């Protein structure tokens, strides 16, 4: 029972990380109609910036404070220099150009920081555990990650439904020319949205830092899962991204833990572990295939 609870919270935590990644990316996909493979690079930039500053100053918070603007600035630079020229091109060009950007960023981090991964420590004030239920301790850092995710979800909800900026962004998504004709600087708005997405990816990178190793190419591991989330949730929908992220986080985590055990019930141990492990690593993709057969445009399709 406790194991199940612990794994549920683990799944929730992975879901939150995926949500931070996919919220920004789904906006870029949905609003600008541009496919951006380099989103994982912003995650990596966030993680590297935080790890470096945290090592220099010994403070996780300073690392976080450095990482957010770093990711946002890199994101806005990328938008202004490369992606802006690709909005009217077809998806193939966008894929290739952003693929080039990935190669560039990964190799650049290898040049600057070397091939060895960096390690980040959990900040001292979050290194303890909290009893989520009597007799069930859970690392406070992971709980904090979940808390941050909830805060970001609320923030995005308020930003898009309650502010003028959010209204303009939504309007820009449905009719770019009209909004521009009404005097809104749509180019700047796009850059801003892109920066926001990059910052959220950077935030995810910072929070992943103490859990995973900070290394070149780390962005691509999570990028593919992020794509799965966006496809399941429906391109352009933040609500879809939230629900799909939690779903994918749960399926992935629970699959890895429980599938081998499930197969052991009716297969010999070694075979069960093998099949269970392979199925678990494929589970989210199978989930995606099933959902696509059922709803080809995702769970919460945005009106085209």
């Amino acid at each position, binding site marked *: 029972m406790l194991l199940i609870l612990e794994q549920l919270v683990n799944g929730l935590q992975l879901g939150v990380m995926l949500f931070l990644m996919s919220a920004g990316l789904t906006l870029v*996909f949905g609003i600008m*109609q541009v*496919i951006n*493979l380099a989103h994982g690079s912003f995650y990596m930039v966030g993680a590297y910036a935080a790890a470096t500053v945290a090592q220099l100053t010994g403070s996780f918070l300073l690392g976080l404070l450095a990482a957010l603007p770093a990711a946002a600035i890199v994101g806005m630079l990328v938008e202004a220099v*490369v992606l802006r*020229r*690709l909005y009217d*091109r077809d*998806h*193939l*060009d966008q*894929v*290739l*150009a952003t*693929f*080039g*950007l*990935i*190669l*560039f*960023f*990964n*190799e*650049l981090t*290898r*040049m600057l920081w070397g091939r060895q991964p960096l390690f980040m420590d959990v900040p001292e004030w979050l290194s303890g555990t909290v009893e989520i239920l009597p007799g069930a301790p859970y690392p406070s850092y992971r709980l904090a990650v979940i808390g941050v995710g909830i805060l970001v979800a609320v923030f995005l909800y308020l930003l898009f439904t309650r502010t003028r900026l959010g209204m303009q962004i939504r309007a820009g998504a449905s009719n770019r020319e009209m909004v521009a004709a009404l005097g809104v600087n749509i180019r700047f708005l796009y850059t801003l949205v892109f920066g926001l997405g990059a910052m959220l990816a950077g935030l995810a990178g910072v929070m992943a830092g103490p859990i995973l190793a900070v290394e070149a190419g780390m962005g*691509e591991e999570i990028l*593919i899962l992020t*794509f*799965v989330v*966006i*496809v399941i949730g429906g*391109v352009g929908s933040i609500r879809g991204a939230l629900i799909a992220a939690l779903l994918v986080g749960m399926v992935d985590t629970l699959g890895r833990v429980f599938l081998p055990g499930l197969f052991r019930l009716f297969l010999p141990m070694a075979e069960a572990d*093998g099949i269970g*492990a*392979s199925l678990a*690593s*494929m589970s989210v*993709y*199978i989930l*995606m*295939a099933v959902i*696509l*057969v059922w709803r*080809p*445009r995702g769970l919460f399709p945005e009106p085209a």
Partner: protein
Amino acid sequence: MLIPGNSRKHLLLSLGLVALVILPPVSSAFGESYLISLFSRILIYALVAVSLDLILGYGGMVSLGHAAFFGVGAYVVGILAFHSYEGDPLLTWPFLVEGTESGLMAIPLAMLISAFFALVIGFFSLRTSGMHFIMITLAFAQMIYYFCVSLETYGGDDGLSLYARNQLPGLDLSNDGHFYYLCLGILVLYLFVSNRLVNSRFGRVIQGTRENERRMQALGYATFRYKLICFTIAGAGAGLAGALIANQTEFVSPGLMHWTRSGEILVMVLLGGMGTLFGPVLGAMVLLLLEEILASYTEHWMVLLGPFLVIMVLFAKRGLYGLLAGQRH
């Protein structure tokens, strides 16, 4: 433009073919025989790039998972050779399947199984289009990638070494020269078949679907079926190339189907010129040679290749083949 486009194209192709045919004796004569294995690799990647161009350039389907079929083809050869060496059958139920090192068995089987994977993946992916299609092909390729990583019997993450290349009657594949001519022969054959294919009625329907799918449907074509068949043929081509790369390197690993490999193949097609059959061959050659040259100057060559790609996309839309052969598409 002194020579009209068409004859310029023929001149270019004949020169290219002659150069490729005389490459092994010439490079051996100059003591640069490593060129033979480098160009074998180039020919194999050219094959997979041409197969991608069938769906990408002619069918308008931007697949970011083509390396999966390449990897599946390689794994079929690898796994069959593994069982042949170990002497235990691959399957005992429902029927007996023994391992084999015979190229006449392994290579067609690699094509067949890759085609089957393409059929299944295409069946699901082709329900979508545009951005969704890109992400779904990518996700399916990752699924196969992780599946191969979890194959502990066959080396998992580390991959599987072959003890020898496949055997083909009349050829000694352990000889790099023979192997090179096998690759060249297969590539030429595949180009010939593809050329017939894209100019056939089937090819016209595929190209019409790329331009306007709804109109083709209105004309009574079951476009989904055409696209799926095209996707499957491309998958078979990639599987064939995979079978060759497994033989060339005598090693298979999940790295063959990593999604960056799919990206690389995509780059070859675009670099050479998509929607042409010879463009991807040129693209594969230029990209791999560029990698080789850059890598000899700096270990961090990708930091140069990345911006090069971005600039290519932004400014050179028609690809190298378009520039050289002056062909419009």
